[in-house]
């Protein structure tokens, strides 16, 4: 019959995009502030999309998050970090696409070996989240070395340790968070989705 699955996929992706838009604008469901740090929940959303819809769709959702981050770095930055780092589209978009890809590959590989879905999801989420952190750190360094032009010409030499410090210290709790929370959300949802399709 007609391409039901295509329509459903279109709409599921649309809903995930809507959720990402919400998460980037409402702190309560997008970020958890812990002291001076702010842990984002959004990598978990990307991994959930990956688990429910597949690797490619997870990468798409990651990419959408990246594009939103990129645009917002200009018009509505959430942190000083954003104005310095995420105004570069490669730093804001590429690592986020990779969350979906890495988590997807990991999840597929793990599923064959591990029986418990929640464990596979958890590991995939940790890897996805770490991918993001490591790539953002790496790219900041690369662009600093390459002396890329900047929107707000900040003295990078003095700022680099600070940047790496912030991204790094955010990265660890973020990965732990993703590892704990993602399976708690993804597992019941995969049940909801399976029932209907």
């Amino acid at each position, binding site marked *: 019959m007609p391409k039901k699955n295509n329509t459903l996929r279109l709409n599921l992706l649309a809903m995930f995009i809507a959720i990402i838009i919400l998460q980037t604008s409402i702190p309560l469901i997008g970020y958890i502030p812990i002291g001076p740090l702010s842990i984002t929940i959004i990598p978990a959303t990307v991994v959930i999309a990956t688990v429910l819809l597949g690797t490619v769709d997870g990468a798409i959702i990651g990419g959408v998050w990246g594009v939103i981050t990129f645009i917002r770095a200009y018009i509505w930055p959430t942190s000083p970090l954003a104005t310095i780092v995420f105004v570069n589209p490669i730093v804001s978009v590429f690592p986020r696409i990779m969350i979906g890809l890495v988590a997807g590959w990991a999840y597929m590989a793990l599923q064959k070996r591990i029986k418990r879905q929640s464990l596979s999801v958890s590991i995939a989420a940790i890897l996805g989240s770490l991918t993001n952190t490591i790539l953002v750190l790496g790219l900041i360094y690369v662009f600093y070395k390459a002396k890329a032009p900047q929107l707000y010409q900040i003295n990078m030499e003095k700022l680099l340790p600070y940047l790496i410090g912030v991204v790094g210290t955010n990265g660890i709790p973020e990965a732990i968070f993703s590892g704990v929370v993602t399976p708690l959300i993804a*597992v*019941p949802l995969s*049940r*909801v989705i399976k*029932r209907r399709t």
Partner: protein
Amino acid sequence: MDKAISFNQVTHTYQANTPYAQNALDNISLEIPTNSFTAIIGHTGSGKSTLVQHINALLKPTQGSVTVYNRSITPTTTNKNLKELRRHVGMVFQFPEKQLFEETVIKDIMFGPKNYGMVDAEAEQAAIEAMKLVGLDKSLSEKSPFDLSGGQMRRVAIAGVLAMKPEVLILDEPTAGLDPRGHKEIMDLASYLHDHDHITIILVTHQMDDVVNYASEVVVMDKGKIVQTGTPAEVFADPKWVYRMQLNLPTSAEFAQQLIDAGVPIGQLPLTIDQLADRITELARKGENPDD
């Protein structure tokens, strides 16, 4: 009568200090007696939901104060003090099945009780009792709530509120989307909780038949104000006023009005089917013995 809840000159403004500011509640004073069954009616957008969310401290008044069992909520009450109040006021939202999230039915029902400090065994006991109350079979307790039918999911959600053993239960259109059997079961449950467990029930509804069949007190809202309070008979006494409030009459009153228009001298509007049948019986007997 003892008062469970009182509103003292409460005003609530959404988006205060912006150009979009609007008063959702406008200087409301109201008392709801302990162990009453109060229906809150009013057309869509009249402020009913805003009103009941104050009872549960989900909203704080912009001005005035709300008192629930001697605990006061004022514009300056800090969020810390609200939790203690909320445990005494259970709230069933519209389409409450949308709030389910746990792995199993029993865990979901235990969620509220545990948040309010019950230990596992205690919460489980409360959950089992709540399942029985709402008519959920014990065999469902280890199932995922997402594998149940819509009607069952709603019962799980209601059980999750009842397991917290609230003294006041707010039901916001609890039967929306249910079929007649499901509707009756939920309303009968509310009635049972009121009669048997002496819970104060506050029902927000569009169904006037439920108002006359179950409620003892009625609050009518319009444009953020309370325009009438009283028994169902008092509130529905003037059909023209009821229609002006964009509300309906109970079916029996509406039918009686049609009889009156057709020339049958019904007199005061009956509210329930039995009242109407009694009245017709009375009139018919009179017809048989015109001398009476």
